[in-house]
């Protein structure tokens, strides 16, 4: 779950990490009030779950409360990077002497947290050459110890008061990362402003699987309505542009199904992974979600392991009995209780394929026939 910048900064602040003074606002009036409270020049930043807002016109400067209100009015309700802006963060404009980059994330290869830092921060961090990027892997049983912080600071090349600030910041940032089940904590830019280090941005992603033990976070929703509905059923769903609705069980086989469809010239309407052990009721609901996308064909590809073929067949029959299915359904069904499932389908007028490629080819043929 991604956090909005203002939430990430609130989180940082609660750990004693310095952030610019400021507050979230949902209306131009609120924005002007926050600007008045801060005094002087302010920055008005659109709150969306994406980076590169600066280049997208999502960050404006203002030198009075009136200007701040106007800036907020320009941004609020509009879109930045294709995302609707519902709130802004109004904060003091800080003096920037230098911009650094700092983050901690999970390194799947090393199977450890990795701290990434660079003396060259700011918008173009992805173009900074590898030799200017510092990577430090953290043993989860040891944590980020003071000596490691000093070594990272040394490699960044800091000296004087900002070096001391960095030595203090690094273990705290790891603490946030660990205690909050974060997959990512990123500060870009981390600004040197006089003697101080200030987190001028905050990008925090909380591990969805860790949310059950992370109380006190507002729930941020990034999914479309259909995706939310699928998620509530324990299904993984992504909307796509095509006209063949797809349901399979397992992320890999769902991807394989899409690949096969495209191979035969078809165009998938969605990615729906029904998971490994979904029962009859969930399967029926998943079908409902597919139908709502108004596809030309539905392709169901089930390789039964934990999922039982008879459950899938019964679910299909149930949906058919409850409502009309206005488009053809192509089913591939093998695995656990395959014979029973195929029998149920036949009795109810569905044809079942044993081979994935044949089923995919058939679905493409039907979609293109219209």
């Amino acid at each position, binding site marked *: 779950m991604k956090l909005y910048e203002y939430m990430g900064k609130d989180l940082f602040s609660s750990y004693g990490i310095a952030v610019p003074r400021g507050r979230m606002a949902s209306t131009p009036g609120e924005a002007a009030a926050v600007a008045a409270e801060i005094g002087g020049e302010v920055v008005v930043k659109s709150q969306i779950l994406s980076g590169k807002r600066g280049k997208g016109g999502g960050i404006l400067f203002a030198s009075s409360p009136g200007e701040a209100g106007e800036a907020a009015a320009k941004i609020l309700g509009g879109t930045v990077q294709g995302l609707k802006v519902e709130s802004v963060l109004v904060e003091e404009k800080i003096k920037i002497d230098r911009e650094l*980059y700092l*983050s*901690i*994330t*999970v*390194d*799947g*290869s090393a*199977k*450890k*947290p*990795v701290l*990434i830092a660079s003396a060259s921060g700011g918008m173009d*961090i*992805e173009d900074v050459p*590898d030799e200017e*990027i510092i990577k430090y892997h953290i*043993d*989860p*049983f040891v944590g980020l110890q003071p000596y490691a912080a000093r070594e990272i600071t040394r490699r960044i090349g800091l000296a004087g008061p900002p070096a001391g600030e960095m030595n203090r910041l690094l273990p705290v940032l790891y603490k946030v990362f*660990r205690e909050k*089940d974060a*997959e*990512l904590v*990123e500060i*870009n830019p981390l600004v040197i402003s006089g003697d101080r280090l200030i987190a001028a941005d905050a*990008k925090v*992603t909380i591990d969805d*699987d*860790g949310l*059950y*033990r992370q109380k006190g976070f507002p729930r941020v929703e990034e999914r479309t309505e259909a995706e939310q509905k699928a998620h509530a059923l324990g299904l993984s769903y992504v909307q*796509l542009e095509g006209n063949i609705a797809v349901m*399979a*069980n*397992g*992320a*890999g*086989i769902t*991807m*394989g199904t*899409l*690949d*096969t*469809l*495209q*191979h035969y010239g078809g165009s*998938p309407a969605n*990615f729906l992974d029904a998971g*490994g*052990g979904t029962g009859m009721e969930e399967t029926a609901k998943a079908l409902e979600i597919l139908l709502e996308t108004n596809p030309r064909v539905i392709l169901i590809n089930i*390789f*039964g*392991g*934990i999922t039982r073929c008879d459950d899938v067949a019964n679910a299909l029959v149930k949906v058919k009995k409850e409502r009309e299915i206005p488009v053809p359904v192509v089913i591939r069904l093998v*695995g*656990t209780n395959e014979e029973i499932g195929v029998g149920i389908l036949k009795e109810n007028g569905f044809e079942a394929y044993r*081979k*994935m*490629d044949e089923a995919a080819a058939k679905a493409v043929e039907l979609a293109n026939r219209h």
Partner: protein
Amino acid sequence: MAIIIDENTNVIVQGATGNQGRFHTRQMLAYGTRIVGGTSPGKGGQEVEGIRIYENVFAAMEDHRVDASCLFIPAPFARDAAFEAIEAGVKVVVIITEHIPVHDEMDIVNFARQKGATIIGPNTFGIVSSGKCKIGIPSNRFFVPGPVGVVARSGTLTYEIVANLTACGIGQTTVVGLGGDRVVGLSFVDVLQKFEKDPETKAVVMVGEIGGNQEEEASLFIKKMSKPVVAYIAGKSAPPGKRMGHAGAIIERGRGTYEGKVKALKEAGASVAALPFEVPDLVRERIGI
């Protein structure tokens, strides 16, 4: 021969009294797996499918040599259960559980490294040494002995490919599910190394996915392998996965795409199937059967 587990592997099932644990204990027994016990706190002394239930792994090990453990433990308790098995001295820990927090996964894998244990998963279908031992959840019917080692990131896609192989008369030495999560115990390279050393394995099928850079790392090892590798990479047409901010980009540095993975594998000498059902033909071609 086979890798990691074989007909002499003694297995316990952690969480054997739950629905999943009970069902798959029965399935594994039917496959011929030597299950010597199960665990379930507070239920020591009961029986499930004719198997004795113990309070914990330590108690089971008072009665049996235990080589491997299979976890059917809900995500919030999986870290603790895995630690228990590792500290008790179990050398192969298969974690079926999905949705384990990634910090817990890092803890598990690093604790296992310290103690010299092998973690399979989390979020894996498990591991099958065909005809000898199955630890995990795939259905029993498709796994038959033969000359091909299989290593995969995702479950059902692997069943698909294994079933295709079996239908074409190509059996498997061992089929390893690495697990679908970002942090898992084994990488492709770890398993390829074992297959390279296993005398019965004549070729390896590797089932990858877009994202991450495991397949690219595997390519470096494949270059040095004496045995042929056939790969399929899922996700050619998949929507882009979520990205971990700039940090993710810095780690991946352009790796992780379908095209990049296929290029790396082909340059390393692997055959790459465009679609899952092309795998058996490519295997035939490479081992000349």
